[in-house]
């Protein structure tokens, strides 16, 4: 009888452990995005214009350079910040001045934003300024989209292919 209880106890122990592992290996379900919502993901890495224009070197200046470093122009490394805006149905959803990366601020400006919005029809306007101008934008794109629940709308930016890309 004593052995029976021991074996039963061992069986119950392994049953409980197996149930514990089996359950928590994929339950309870985690809701990452609320029902009825969709996601707009805005991300790009873009190098803006230089803060100061390149300047032509005089022949005297060129002559003073080491032979292997002689070039017609000289350029300051620093780039202006990229100003980006995302407008959803007339409301400003994202507005940022993205500093150029790198110790000398000469790298691309980067952003990676996840914006959770209600599913349904929307008008999206994306704007970007990457030059030294103080007002206005260098790129602007407007799209009418129908976002389904849980849809992920990616907005990328590539200057050499025309600007904003909606995917």
């Amino acid at each position, binding site marked *: 009888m004593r052995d029976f*209880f021991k074996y039963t106890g061992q069986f119950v122990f392994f049953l409980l452990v197996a149930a514990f592992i089996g359950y928590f290996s994929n339950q309870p*379900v985690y809701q990452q995005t609320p029902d009825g919502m969709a996601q707009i993901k805005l991300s790009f890495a873009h190098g803006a214009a230089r803060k100061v224009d390149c300047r032509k070197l005089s022949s005297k200046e060129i002559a003073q350079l080491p032979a292997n470093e002689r070039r017609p122009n000289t350029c300051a490394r620093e780039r202006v910040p990229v100003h980006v805006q995302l407008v959803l149905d007339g409301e400003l959803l994202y507005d940022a001045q993205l500093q150029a990366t790198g110790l000398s601020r000469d790298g691309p400006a980067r952003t990676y934003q996840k914006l959770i919005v209600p599913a349904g029809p929307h008008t999206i306007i994306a704007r970007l300024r990457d030059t030294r101008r103080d007002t206005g934008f260098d790129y602007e794109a407007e799209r009418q989209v129908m976002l389904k629940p849980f849809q*992920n709308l990616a907005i990328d930016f590539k200057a050499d292919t025309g600007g904003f890309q909606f995917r």
Partner: protein
Amino acid sequence: MNMARLVLRRGFDLTEGVLGRVFPPAWNPMLNLGALGFFFYWIITVSGIYVYIFFDTGVDNAYASIEYITHEQWYLAGIMRSFHRYASDALIVVMMLHLLREFARDRYRGVRWFSWVTGVPIMVMVFVAGISGYWLVWDKLAQYIAIVSTEWLDMLPIFGEPIARNFMSPDALESRFFTLMIFMHIAIPLIALAILWIHLQRVAKPRINPPRGLAYSVFVALIALSLAHPALSQAPADLAVVPGNVGLDWFYLPLFPLLETLPGSLTWGMSACLLVIMIAMPWLPPLKRARPAAVDLANCNGCARCFHDCPYNAIAMVARSDDTAFEREPVVNPDFCVSCGLCAGACPTSMPFRRLSALSPGIDLPDRTMAQLRDLTEKAARSLTGTQRIMVFGCDSGPDLAAVSSASVGVVPLVCIGQLPPTFIDYVLSRNLADGVLLTGCRENSCNARSGIEWTNNRLAGERDPNLRARVPRDRLRTAWVGATGGRHLRDALETLARELNDADDYVRPALAAKCPPAAREAVDA
């Protein structure tokens, strides 16, 4: 810290006690956590190799190949996949319990810092290996893990372009990420295995395999779980939609929801702090440790019993440095010695009968010497009265000895029960210091100094030097391996022994030597 340790210790004591009622001592799962961890590691390795044969490493076909494994070849590859998943989860469970148990038993400070500190990277690697494995299925869960992991990594200002941009949209993803993940999923466990080897370097004869019966039982439980609740993929990954509702593996991914909701500086800061605290724990605060065992060459014949019995590889046998004819002598490495006294208990010169010369064994604990132990024994004996006088030898990690001390029960505390040379039992009974002897300590298979109970049992059974002499009446000797919470069981054992002593045959004690010490004579007279 002490309060947390005490609460946890109490919890482990209770759990081990409950499991001790249904499992034999050698099978108790709570006392085989490290060995079970190794067992799960091998199951993961074998099942992983088999599943890998059918796995397509390209991003386009990874999901389909896993579906084939799960549904087409469910009878073997599918079970192997479930094995792989559930053994990985079980590994997390036993690893975390192992960590908490060593913390609760205060076996991570002092010279034990090495095993603790080397265990920290293993823990991190097990998590990283598991998370990278989930990535390979490339289902909705994999998509969630990939995005959250890379977004979290991107919070470190070290990457030129956000890695998470690789998961922006379906056309952004390339198979090279899978190649990297597979490399990580295979390389990291191998590195962890190498560190596991280092982790065990300061442990003599580590138990890396669970008892066969326990291993079979765990294996059968895993098969039953794999058949009843096979591991399945979730919907295939689709970067055009967000994962939405995800079935998380809460053993590996409990912090993922926090990673995506809390600021990166906070999560990285907390992770770094946790890692630093984990590594620094053996010195928070440092253990006030007893002095390590010391060798007295004048009383050492180089028999090497201490060397064989040390559970922590703290003793090395080297060429003799004095002028005696013996070949070798033990040398104690103070950085490895936990001052458990097992070496002194193994020393044949730990002989309480010695009176002509001082009781100074070849190896002894400077803070708890054999001479002090004999004095304590004789002092305890002097206060005993009645006809069922019992002397209890118990270790510091065992039940509360003071609670059972009485006019008929004397108690002698030891660092570990393995510190007690069997000659002390002979001494107590033959010198009429008590009518019976009871040895108590940690729960069997759970000795705080790893081998104290095993060596003691072997010595009593005549299977390990120094043996208990044949002349010692076994019916006057009992053991009770009941653990710190086993006070009631200890009292039961004492009552049983007292009853048995009442019914036991008369013990004709060996004649006292002429030079018997006054203390012993007084005890005999009493």
